[in-house]
């Protein structure tokens, strides 16, 4: 018997192929190395110092002393171990590569679409590029970060990914939106 396990994405079977991208586009990332970092008691500053975002990974604020770290460089299997080594005794690191789904919403109406479910002021002055926050979107919680003038990353619990995509389609009812897996 061969044991070659193929990973299944939470949204496999829920997103069809599209002919072309529309003005606004929701891109679902197939794999992403994700880890949660919890600073050790009293060691928030030390952990934050080590987690300064660089080309390798990006640390997004989740709560005091807690960051969601994403990496396109490291593999899901190795990011947590890599971070553990770097953070040493300053933090606990938990692999979340399978626990979360990352989506990128981009387009001229991105902020307007999100305003149909999110109460946070997403005006560029109030929520500039790089700002991250855990927010409520309709009924579910997600980590939101502005990645550009017209683009946002949404990181959601895996089990809610389907519900979020369904919600985003409804939120974008009046705005041209396409949904697809990211090609990378």
């Amino acid at each position, binding site marked *: 018997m061969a044991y070659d396990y193929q990973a299944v994405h*939470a949204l496999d079977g829920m997103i069809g192929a599209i002919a072309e991208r529309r003005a606004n586009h929701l891109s679902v990332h197939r794999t992403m190395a994700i880890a949660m970092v*919890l600073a050790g008691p009293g060691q928030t500053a030390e952990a934050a110092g080590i987690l300064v975002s660089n080309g390798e990974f990006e640390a997004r604020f989740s709560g005091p002393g807690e960051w969601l770290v994403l990496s396109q460089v490291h593999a899901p299997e190795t990011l947590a171990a890599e971070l553990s080594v770097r953070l040493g005794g300053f933090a606990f690191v938990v692999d979340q590569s399978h626990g979360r789904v990352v989506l990128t919403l981009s387009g001229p109406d991105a902020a307007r679409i999100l305003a149909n479910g999110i109460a946070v002021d997403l005006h560029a002055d109030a929520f500039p590029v790089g700002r991250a926050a855990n927010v409520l979107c309709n009924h579910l919680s997600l980590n939101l970060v502005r990645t550009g003038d017209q683009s946002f990353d949404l990181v959601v619990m895996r089990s809610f990914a389907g519900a979020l995509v369904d919600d985003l389609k409804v939120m974008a*009812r009046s705005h041209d939106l396409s949904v697809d897996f990211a090609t990378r």
Partner: protein
Amino acid sequence: MSAFRLASGGLVDRSHTLRFTFDGASLTGHAGDTLASALLANDRLLLGRSFKYHRPRGIMTAGPSEPNGLVTVGSGARRDPNTKATVAELYDGLEARSQNRWPSLAYDIGAVNNLMSRFLSAGFYYKTFMWPAAFWEKVYEPLIRRAAGLGRTDLPRDPDAYEKSWAHCDLLVVGAGPAGLAAALVAARSGLRVILAEQDFVLGGALLSETAPVGGEPPYVFARRVVEELQNSPNVTLMPRTTVFGWYDDNVFGALERVQKDVAALDAAKPVERLWRIVAKHAILATGAEERPLVFGGNDRPGIMTASAVSTYANRFGVAAGKSVAIFTNGSSGYRTAQDLAARGVEIAVLIDSRAASGDVAPDGVRLVRGGSIVDTKGRQRVRAVVADRGGFEELIGCDAVAMSGGWSPVIHLACQRGGKPVWSEALQAFMAPEAGPALVTAGAAAGHYRLSECFDDGARKASAIVEAIGRQAVGIERPVIGEETDPSFTALWHVPGAKSKAFVDFQNDVHTGDLGLAVREGFGHVEHAKRYTTGGMATDQGKLGNINAIGILAGMRGVSPAEVGTTTFRPFYTPVSFGALAGTSVDGHAMPIRRSPLHGWAARNGAVFIDAGLWYRSSWFPKAGEKTWRESVDREVRTVRENAGLCDVSTLGKIEVFGPDAAEFLSRLYCNPVLKLPVGKARYGLMLREDGMVYDDGTVSRLGEDHFFVTTTTALAGGVLSHMEFAAQVLWPDLRVRFLSVSDQWAQMSIAGPKARAILQAVVEDDISNAAFPFLAARAVRLKGNLKARLFRISFSGELAYELAVPAGYGEAVADALMRAGAPHGICAYGVETLNVLRLEKGHVTHAELDGRVTPDDAGLGRMMGTSKPDFIGKRLSARFGLTAADRAQLVGLKVLEPEKDIRAGAHLLKDGAKPSTLNDQGWVSSACFSPTLGGHIALAFLKSGRERYGEKIVVWDQLRGVETFAEVCDPVFVDRENTKLMA
């Protein structure tokens, strides 16, 4: 040209004709019309019957305070009752129907109520329908429901889409009249983020119906110019057709945008209405002022309108309210309407001024009666004459419309919705907005500045102050030169003495002066009492038009000032908001999010029937070909697990990873059982109590490292337990060095249970999992063949040799498939939560069906787990209190049904044989029940008083819902393998 449409003038597009129907009749209007202006142009004055007396009623205003012009628009599932004709934008294909009439608008049987009116006085519900009591439900209520009420709704579900959105701004301006436009312009030029909301479909407010030139051009042209500048400002959002209906905590405003209420063919890509929650740093209410009706005999006849409405229909819509209009006024505004009509060639029958003297001058050739009044009107479906009175001398004056002006009231509703009470102004004879703090100010007519020039100045001044408060430089605007302005002064006249017929105060609820008098005489003179007693100021209208006169009249009757009478309480919503808009997108599948297990696809491929379990979709059972009922499938699954093996998805359990040097101490205080000495690589059942000593939740605690634990919770309380732990760590014991995180979604977790479980698992797991190497309650990381990291726990909920295997969620389906392949030669089956329930019940394991918040560990038979030697844990102290240790508490027992043909169900109560059902005789209750394929009969878990001493007793299971009594035998709750030989094998 239709009957009452003027030859020229107005802002309607006469080149663009729109077709619509009213009560089936085909009519036409123009783009820019409201339904009301188009109906008036077509001589359709009669729009409905009144609420109580079924008197004919017509349009009375030209805006959102309209009490009578309520129609039903659309049909079927799209039927919109109580649409204000004065607000509804006319569109091609609009279908409107009159309401509250039967069988027809012109001949209404209910009008007999008018003749019976002495029985329908204030408080009539409370007085008339008292006896006999049984008549209320069968006779009176259906009759009243048929006779009264405003419109009706339909049962088919609303097919339309709605949306809810958030918006944020530095300044929200409510109302786009002269004050609102000036305020928005100052704020826009000063760089603020501005939202300008206006309920009308055209921005401009009073400028759309004013005639005095502004900046040398017609006022609407000026308005258009300002709107254009605002439109081109990137920091300004214009929201026409948007009614701000509520002012909420922290300066959040609720607003309803009518997105597609102006078209017959809906664009499916858009919502019909959008509900906005506008978070505003500052807000300016520039909501204008409302003209008051006058309370005189017969003042409700169709054709009688407020004078400003008559002016608006003439100036903005090019529609004459009548061919010969009588004007009745207590101030200068009536003269303004006379000028407007005279300028457009509409005949003025008479201008009656209630004041004996004033400086106002009537247009040339208009008959002016100073110090006069109207005491009655004539006509049926349209007014045809007024009875004028001057010094006791009555005169019948023919006319076909009456314009009445009773003075002005600032529109201050929003400013009073958070508890502030309106303040009476003796100078303005009106209630003014209370001081509402820096975040909300009124401007223009809403602040009592009625003249156009004052409106501009006030709006600009208040916006400048806000700009500066925000810390920016205010960019001023130059006020345009304004032509001749009307003096808004008036002399209050709450009601006209000597009325010869009913003088209505509240037109929507049919409340007249006599009702208010009765309320005062019967002790209901307090303004809030009078409202409930007379129904004045209720329903969709909420007294927008009539309340101020009611207050003035009550004040007069009680001999006090209106200030002393005060107002009723202002609450949202300013105008009605549809349920659809309030629900927004939270309907159907979007009412709550669906959670899918990482093994969902695997379960679906194996034919699972799914069931909602909280937010989760869980596999309930897995029917095989030929199985006709769920019981057949479940019985087979249970037998397969007991004889071979089964695989069940348990990914929905809450999973929490706990770290830190104090992790063990922390968990020791959370669980009632000992945790500190749990060895690394071992799992343990864990029971959490509430501080009151009752069981909160149960699960497992596994020690993966000295300072690293993995705990599970039940599916139902996964969120609750996490919050509970966070409270304990952050609030109760912030000094403990512990960190934890929910990892529920990271892992796909499956239970492999049954005598063949090890053999199947060993085919997939690289590590040695023999009984010696991986004994009962072992818990540690393993490597699967194919080099996949996993976690394995030897724990059992079924009583069988069992394991729970956790793999990264994305690999869940592949690993489950591999296990099913490896298990095929061993006869493995997939099983769902139904079978899980039967298995645990046979083994006497508890779930939240048992742990319902009233149960102590000892009640559940788990008393021996309590770590009583621990210095502290949540629930320890109150576990020892009197009552929780009483000997006659209900204790967990098993029940075996003694009558083979009968089942028992959860919720049934237990009685001694021969005892009558009563609270006193109650012996306990059934918490869960099932058919046990292993025992071949129905069994249950139950709580029975002193139950553990009563094994072997025959007891009655009393099911009142089904009216069934069943004999059962009390037994040990563990029905299978009491010695745990299978578990340890």
